[in-house]
């Protein structure tokens, strides 16, 4: 599978599973000192060859004219973490939870197992250097992090891995939402449930 096909496959799934709106979200892959990133304003569900643009990781070039407006965030993440791929999405339930919580601690089995805890950080400007710094700092410790009221950034060795964290987070957020809606006393099934907060 070519890199373009990988962008297309993950982009389509992000859109169809409701993790991004028509023109929301972005993705990138690190290639040494270069970055392949989705075009500014592209539709992740309809990625074409023109929608994946190349620019420098450390230095600007004309590719920046076309790249996602969140390229500075992606660059900072690559410079400060071991990630080789980034998915940024707007998972609705997780975004809603982020408006009320400082961290999202999954209570379902898969979310507990894979994520343990997802921190929520706050930044009003979606693409500024200030946000880039705090997102990257958070991703040094966690594979996915939420920006309050905005969306999440996830890193992986490949796009599919980063996508998995996003999808897992949204499912966990949904389970939290359903559980709160149901009310009552939750029956704990995890041996070290009290430790997840410390993750």
């Amino acid at each position: 599978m070519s890199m373009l096909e990988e962008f297309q496959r993950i982009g389509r799934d992000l859109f169809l599973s409701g993790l991004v709106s028509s023109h929301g979200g972005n993705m990138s892959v690190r290639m040494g000192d270069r970055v392949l990133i989705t075009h500014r304003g592209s539709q992740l569900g309809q990625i074409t060859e023109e929608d994946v643009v190349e620019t420098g990781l450390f230095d600007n070039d004309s590719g920046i004219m076309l790249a996602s407006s969140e390229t500075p965030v992606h660059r900072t993440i690559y410079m400060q973490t071991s990630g080789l791929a980034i998915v940024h999405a707007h998972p609705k339930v997780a975004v809603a939870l982020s408006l009320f919580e400082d961290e999202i601690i999954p209570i379902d089995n898969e979310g507990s197992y894979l994520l343990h805890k997802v921190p929520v950080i706050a930044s009003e400007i979606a693409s500024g250097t200030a946000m880039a710094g705090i997102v990257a700092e958070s991703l040094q410790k966690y594979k996915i992090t939420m920006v309050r009221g905005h969306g999440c950034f996830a890193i992986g060795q490949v796009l599919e891995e980063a996508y998995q964290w996003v999808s897992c987070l949204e499912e966990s957020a949904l389970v939290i939402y359903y559980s709160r809606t149901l009310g009552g006393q939750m029956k704990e099934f995890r041996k070290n449930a009290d430790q997840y907060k410390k993750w």
Partner: protein
Amino acid sequence: MGGWVGKIARINLSTGKISVEDLPQKTAVDYLGGRGLGARILYDEVGPSVEPYSPDNLLIFTTGPLTGTKAPSSSRFSVTTKSPLTGTILDSNCGGKAGLRLKDAGYDALIISGKAAKPVCIIVDEKGIKIQDAGQLWGKDVNETTDILLGQAANPLTASVACIGPAGENLVRFAAVINDKSKAVGRGGVGAVMGSKNLKAVVTSGESKQIAADQETLDFIVYEARKVIKQSPITSIGLPTYGTSALVRVMDMMGAFPSYNFTESIFEHLNDISGEMLREKLFIKQKACWGCPIGCKRETKTANGTGEGPEYESLWALGPECGIHDLEAIADANYLCNRLGLDTISTGVTIGCAMELEKRGIADEGVRFGDAKSMLKAVGDIAYRRNHGDALAEGSRRMAEKHGAKEFAMQAKSMEFPAYEPRAMGVQGLSFATSNRGGCHLRGNMLGPEMLGVPKIVDHSGATGTVGLLIYHQHISAAFDSLGVCKFAGFAVSDELLARMMTAITGIEFVPQNLHHAGERIWNLERLYNLREGFTSKDDTLPKRLMEEPLKDGPAKGRVVKLAPQLEEYYRYRGWDANGVPKKEKLKQLGLEA
């Protein structure tokens, strides 16, 4: 410092002088331990003028900060030296108990220099270190040596013997150090360097007393790590049930299972030597290294005896690589390699190379494809440098070169390849070509992402993007080797879990990027070492066969390794120049500037 003991012992076998010094905390944090610490010491103290068998070469036993801790699969220790096989920097590691007993005795590392006037062994325990006569042990095999030395230990249950067999004594260039009778510090000739120093064995003893900075958090993270090991079918079913030989069928299915000295990429007698057949015919019981919840080892039996193995690589090297499908003969050869102290991979691939030379009418070193009897005889002859064994003991590259047929040696930088057909994989060939210790799968194995889907399956046709992934794996592999953790745990345990365990044990905050950064620093330091030794980008290469002869059949039919463009991309990604030399900015970033 939790994790590190904080002490290094120096032992000069020429003078008998023994001294102890502190391990600087910055060195510990920057290089972690194990392979990284060994590389730092060797770079600083063994320059290009030192020949591998010179008394001035060092033999460095190192442990990692996680060695012997509650971290799963964490019994590993390393031995670092200048390799007599490759001439490169070399470290090899294994999962025996020698490392954790060394830490229990109170040392992170032993730096052994000089050459004893007569055979000796080194005894390390909590009371101190002594050099002891080993004249009566010289000439004995690994099992005999181990039994005798354990019999002399105050408490055999807390002692561990790492020794050489006749192969190391006879300076076979790929002689191993064998720990606990069956765990091989296998590759590159660490056993030969030990033999060149007249050092028969290192015995380490101690009672476990390791403490963690944050025991409660460590317990939680270890619990989580063991949970992911239990959930992965690789680490919870495949490896425990079939051992590493579970890979035989998987690799053959992918057309990546070389045979007949890499002239074929599948094996017609696969069913005779599969993991399933091994379990059915030879299996006695599952075994595990200390502290390992996976348990990929197995005790086996043949008509001639019992032993551990054969592992996937050994099974392949002494089997299909030589066109042999007699499973009992393969296991017997494996037991013999362990007793004599030989690296099974280099042994098998060197014999396989000689078999091809015989088939082509180039040379007759007494072995024939498919002839198990000649292979078994060759193993013994190599260890004692008898008859044709003397030529074979030099390794495939030197042996083939002697006959003017270097291109038939399946090696990179003189180290024989393991059981992965690079033409059927994306960047495994690049991994072999760029490995700092020569053609080896453990320096950045693409088995996970290209074959097993860990973390996700990626295109293994060499598509764009996988070069970066290889570099990622080279770095994290260096970290695993330096922490003292088995890479098989890495099929389930993430860098995130490792970093959290490091934090809980040492009390120093580690994030995954710290491990990758340390791995990159170690990789570049090893590269600098090899460049200083005179290696150049021309040595980052593969045998012509892999780059020019398309595979004849199987799923990867028609493919070759397109090394040149991958190498160009690799150097650029690494921040090296076109000649494969790290740029100043890269060295500065890694704290390696002169």
